[in-house]
């Protein structure tokens, strides 16, 4: 009450009468963050525009024009590479995701604290290895080491469509490439999953434990459902990297323009990114447009994958625990 009387007597204290001071810090920060937000759109639009503009000649040229230069029609040229891109990324995910989730869970819920932080550090270190190093290692060491496995698979499991003989003699197959890719995407999936797992509310974990859940049941009941959206985003980021990975695939995979489901053979579908890298140095004219059009296809694939992921996450938003 006394304050109210006081305000009435001394109008210079009235909130409305004191002019608001311009807050420089606020303005600068608002400007910076808005600018950063806009920059993302501008960059994305610029990339898309460049791709479309440069790909246009290849997309619109008649098959005859391309054939006269010995390239074949665009869509049948790009199809195997698009397939190879998705196929290699798919296998990389198949290999990497269970391992990544396993490591993340071990770090967040099983390992003693000291071991956990050390292990987390090592995993993050894997992400710091340049992809050209993975390429060298994959092509020179890992492929040779895996070759006997290829031979074994072809001999004993050759009836299975994935392992149709003859096996690759060098080991530079889809299998080896996907495994190298898996190692490359492991760190990002692991560290994101670990962060999400660690954020599981103690309340929910205790709710499960108090009902008599074992540790694994608690993880299935409280941790995984809570982390679902996070796991999907982590996997999508990994997938994005696997789809776009260029150097390692170009060096490891002995690829060609074929569509084959066999993962241990001599002839493997190459990826779009690797094809661009391998052919760009001595490309000219329409060939360049064709390669860029390939890049446009890769762009579209990545975009589609991301939208699919968002849709998956949003489908059960009411049950996400965000409310």
């Amino acid at each position, binding site marked *: 009450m006394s304050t109210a009387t006081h305000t009435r007597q001394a109008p210079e204290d009235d909130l409305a009468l004191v002019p608001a001071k311009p807050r420089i810090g606020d303005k600068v920060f608002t400007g910076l963050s808005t600018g950063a937000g806009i920059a993302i759109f501008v960059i994305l639009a610029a990339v898309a525009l460049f791709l479309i503009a440069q790909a246009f000649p290849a997309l619109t040229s008649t098959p005859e024009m391309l054939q006269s230069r010995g390239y074949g029609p665009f869509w049948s040229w790009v199809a195997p590479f698009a397939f190879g891109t998705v196929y290699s990324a798919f296998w990389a995910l198949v290999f990497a995701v269970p391992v990544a989730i396993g490591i993340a869970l071990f770090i967040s819920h099983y390992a003693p604290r000291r071991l956990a932080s050390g292990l987390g550090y090592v995993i993050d270190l894997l992400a710091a290895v340049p992809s050209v190093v993975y390429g060298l290692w994959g092509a020179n060491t890992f492929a040779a080491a895996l070759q006997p496995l290829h031979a074994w698979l072809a001999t004993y499991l050759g009836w299975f469509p994935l392992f149709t003989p003859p096996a690759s003699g060098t080991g530079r197959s889809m299998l080896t490439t996907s495994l190298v890719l898996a190692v490359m995407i492991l760190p990002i999936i692991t560290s994101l999953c670990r962060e999400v797992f660690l954020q599981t*509310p103690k309340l929910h974990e205790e709710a*499960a*434990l*108090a009902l*008599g859940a074992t540790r694994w*049941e608690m993880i299935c*009941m409280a941790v995984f459902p809570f982390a679902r959206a996070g796991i999907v985003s982590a996997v999508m980021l990994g997938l994005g990297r696997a789809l776009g990975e260029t150097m390692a695939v170009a060096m490891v995979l002995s690829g060609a323009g074929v569509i084959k489901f066999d993962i241990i053979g001599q002839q493997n579908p190459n990826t779009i990114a690797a094809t661009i890298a391998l052919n760009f140095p001595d490309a000219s004219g329409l060939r360049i447009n064709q390669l860029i059009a390939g890049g446009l296809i890769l762009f579209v694939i990545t975009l589609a994958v991301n939208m699919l992921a968002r849709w998956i996450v949003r489908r059960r938003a009411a049950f996400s*625990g965000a*409310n």
Partner: protein
Amino acid sequence: MSKRIEAKNLDIFYGDFKAVEGVSMIIEPRAVTAFIGPSGCGKSTFLRSLNRMHEVIPGASVKGELLLDGEDLYAPAVDPVNVRRQIGMVFQRPNPFPTMSIKENVLAGLKLNNKRISAAEADEVAEEALRGANLWEEVKNRLDLPGSGLSGGQQQRLCIARAIAMRPSVLLMDEPCSALDPISTLAIEDLIGTLKNDYTIVIVTHNMQQAARVSDTTAFFNIAGTGQPGHLIEMDDTKTIFTTPNEKATEDYITGRFG
């Protein structure tokens, strides 16, 4: 169904730190026992040791004996998981599983037991538990909606339904109303009054009026100072504790002289 708990000279440790020392008490079945005392006095720790939930914190251990109808809960052969399936718990803040529907929440504990139950049976169990928690009328038309859409008080009753769906022999409540508004609190207190016909109920509360309202027996815990272990100061009929306590510390606490 309802069982008696007996603690004999129980010490509770977190690593080397002794959190609670020398508690001996008997918790009678089909009655409500309230634990009161200032913050940090070990009442919650003691409550959590009753179903071995305190072991969730690495390095936690106990010394002494804790008997559930004569069976030692800390015998080497006893699996804490089985203890928790027999002794249900309700927490300070309502914690329904956010990714599950109301019905799935109620049945969550049963699913853990890997009991194969038919859909009709599951519906029956869910209805019984929700009726038992006095929530059925409010949620019967939205059993498949997420539990997190309910109000705080409803969520807490959902958690009680989830606990009693397991048909536990004891129900532990760790400040179950401290995050709720007065009307929801009243609903939970009424519910506790009904539940004691079937269960042994132990409730930790900061609210002395609540202890006086709902409990038959009250135990007062206290600590000598920070870093010291908590002790059970006295335990008696709730009426006696709130009218003619034996100990000076109890009287000081219930009359609001400290705490």
